[in-house]
């Protein structure tokens, strides 16, 4: 009898680029597990449904997995905007909710105990690592003094912006304050925000104007918090067209191959992006009980799909590893037991994935992890930070030489 695992993903619609990659991550992992004999001796059957980037459909599909397909476990979906609604239904059924993407703090402050986030930390705290790069890698006094923050009106992007700007995070339903992030990472680092702008989630075309405003603000650092790789491409291309000359550009998306394809090597040069994963980081993990390094993952992925993986496939791969280890660890597909097992992880006995080690706090946020900062250099995405922790770190390019 097979062991069924369901995942609802945005294969079509606005989030489809990442959704498709998530599917690959889940599929590859499942395939490798099955080749190694499955979980608890059972072959794994992966059920993927397309939710068309629509929250209501996503909820519907998880409910279908649980009630009709009678799955043994589920994988999370892509993006905060889908994870939020799915969270409540999975909590109702008390399924382990392994979240590949959905970093907003509010998701974890609802009191659910079945959440396990497979990324570094809540998006609100991303700014910490950005500022750290500036502090650690740029010589004293040469760092940017002013910044322009432009962001998509998106869950994830808003959350990063809130951290950078030091805003309060509130639950609009009850107006309860969840966290006060003041004064904000930028203020901390002595960077003044000279321009701030948001664009709507859908239907925005006026990129040149935005880029023009950024240029005119004269900001030395441009922070572009885009919701998708597509927006990152648009923003970068427009900055190039208007001839902006910042010293540093940080984008929240753009680690994907689509980015370099869309903007070209020159424009991409020096653009910094935070990620949870990078192909050159020597993470060690286990798969089906055997050691499985990050390099193994990259190799397997290339063999399967003919392209290099990126973050959007690595994270779901890690989610799949986590569920596998949880089932094996708990010795059952009883989700309550699996949840207990995952919560019981400690630093010495963590969940080991291609994203590194994971242990979680009460809320489901990973403990003691930091982002990997990457930078496009001559058409390649190199990882530049943290220095000193792993092999393969490449020197940071600064300042950026135009687009």
């Amino acid at each position, binding site marked *: 009898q097979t062991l069924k695992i369901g995942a609802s993903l945005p294969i079509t619609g606005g989030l*489809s*680029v990442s*959704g498709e990659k998530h599917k690959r991550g889940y599929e590859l992992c499942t395939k490798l597990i099955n080749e190694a004999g499955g979980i608890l001796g059972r072959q794994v059957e992966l059920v993927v449904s397309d939710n068309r980037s629509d929250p209501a459909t996503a909820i519907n599909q998880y409910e279908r997995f649980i009630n009709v397909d009678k799955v043994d476990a589920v994988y999370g979906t892509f993006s905060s905007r889908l994870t939020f609604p799915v969270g409540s239904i999975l909590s109702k059924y008390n399924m382990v909710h392994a979240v590949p993407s959905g970093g907003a703090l509010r998701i974890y402050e609802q009191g659910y105990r079945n959440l396990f986030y497979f990324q570094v930390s809540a998006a609100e705290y991303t700014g910490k690592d950005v500022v750290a790069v500036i502090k650690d890698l740029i010589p004293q006094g040469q760092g940017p003094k002013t910044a322009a923050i432009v962001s998509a009106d998106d869950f994830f992007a808003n959350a990063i912006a809130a951290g950078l700007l030091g805003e309060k995070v509130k639950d609009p339903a009850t107006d309860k304050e969840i966290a006060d992030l003041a004064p904000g990472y930028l203020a901390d680092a002595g960077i003044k925000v000279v321009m701030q702008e948001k664009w709507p989630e859908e*239907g925005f075309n*006026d990129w040149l104007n935005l880029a023009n405003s950024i240029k005119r603000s004269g900001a030395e650092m441009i922070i572009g918090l885009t919701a998708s790789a597509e927006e990152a491409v648009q923003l970068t291309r427009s900055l190039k067209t208007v001839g902006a000359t910042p010293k540093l550009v940080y984008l929240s998306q753009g680690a994907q191959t689509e980015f370099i394809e869309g903007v070209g090597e020159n424009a991409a040069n020096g653009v910094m992006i935070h990620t949870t994963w990078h192909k050159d980081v020597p993470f060690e993990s286990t798969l089906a009980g055997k050691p499985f390094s990050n390099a193994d993952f990259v190799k397997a992925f290339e063999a399967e799909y003919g392209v290099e993986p990126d973050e959007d496939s690595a994270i779901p791969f890690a989610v799949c590893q986590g569920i596998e280890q949880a089932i094996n660890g708990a010795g059952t597909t009883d989700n309550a037991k699996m949840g207990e097992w995952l919560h019981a992880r400690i630093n010495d006995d963590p969940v080991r994935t291609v994203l590194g080690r994971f242990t979680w706090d009460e809320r489901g946020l990973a403990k003691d992890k930091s982002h990997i900062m990457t930078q496009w250099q001559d058409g390649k995405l190199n990882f530049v930070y943290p220095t000193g922790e792993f092999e393969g770190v490449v020197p940071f390019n600064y300042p950026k030489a135009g687009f």
Partner: protein
Amino acid sequence: MADILQILILGLALGGVIALMGSGLSLVFGVMRIVNLAHPSLIIAGAYIAYWAFKGLGIDPIVMLPVSAAIMAAIGVLVYRLMFEKETKSAKYSEMTVLLTFALAMMAEGVLGGLFTNTQRVTSPDYATDAFFIGDLFIPKGQLYAGLLSLAIIGALTLFLKYSRLGYAIRATTQNREAAELLGVNVNFISILAFAIGIGLAGAAGSLVSFVFSFFPAKHWEWVAMLMSVVVLGGMGSILGTVVAALLLSVVAAFVGTWIGATWSTMTFFLALFLILLIRPQGLFGEKPEMA
């Protein structure tokens, strides 16, 4: 001052492209009474043709324009024969066609998604991310070329419709199919022709759009409302109106986007639509509906 001028330039540059995207829509409505909700998705199809030629064969999208227009026109013929030919006799023609084109939009999205995946694409000829710098000001080359070409195409088409024999036949068929047929017009052929021209225009627009905006199959939903607003504001079916509305709104949107906030720049299009409904329901250049 330079600021204002710059924003104006950017607005106009964007407006030129939007004008071409909208004018195909306007044309198909003007001469066929079809509100083609699928127009944006067909523009995307045209853009994919340009993209494929650019990536695979290294052909410049502007060079590709006539080809992609021709291919799309051919597709238009096919689509018309399969979907719309039967509807011409329906009493609910205009409403039916709205829904049919809606279905067409979904099918196009599905097919394109299957062929090209949902990854975002853009063609990147050099001029696409370049600009003419004049002192403090700059004019983006890509937008400029696209805008000028758009206006030229629209102009040529308008003349064709107004003065050529086929143009007469097309307009006559729209206004009174039976009468046109009784006067010797092969109305079915004319309908196919007109539809093909409209879709061909989508193909042409697609070529130009391919280096101005990035696109993926599902992108058309974002465009549809914006283009429709432009068309209504200009006056349903008036190509000149569409062009003026597109330029006007783009400029206003540029100012709103800069001075009030980028979130609100899209809003310009929709608010303008409501405003025009309040004060001049037939649109800027539309004819006042005749009562009795």
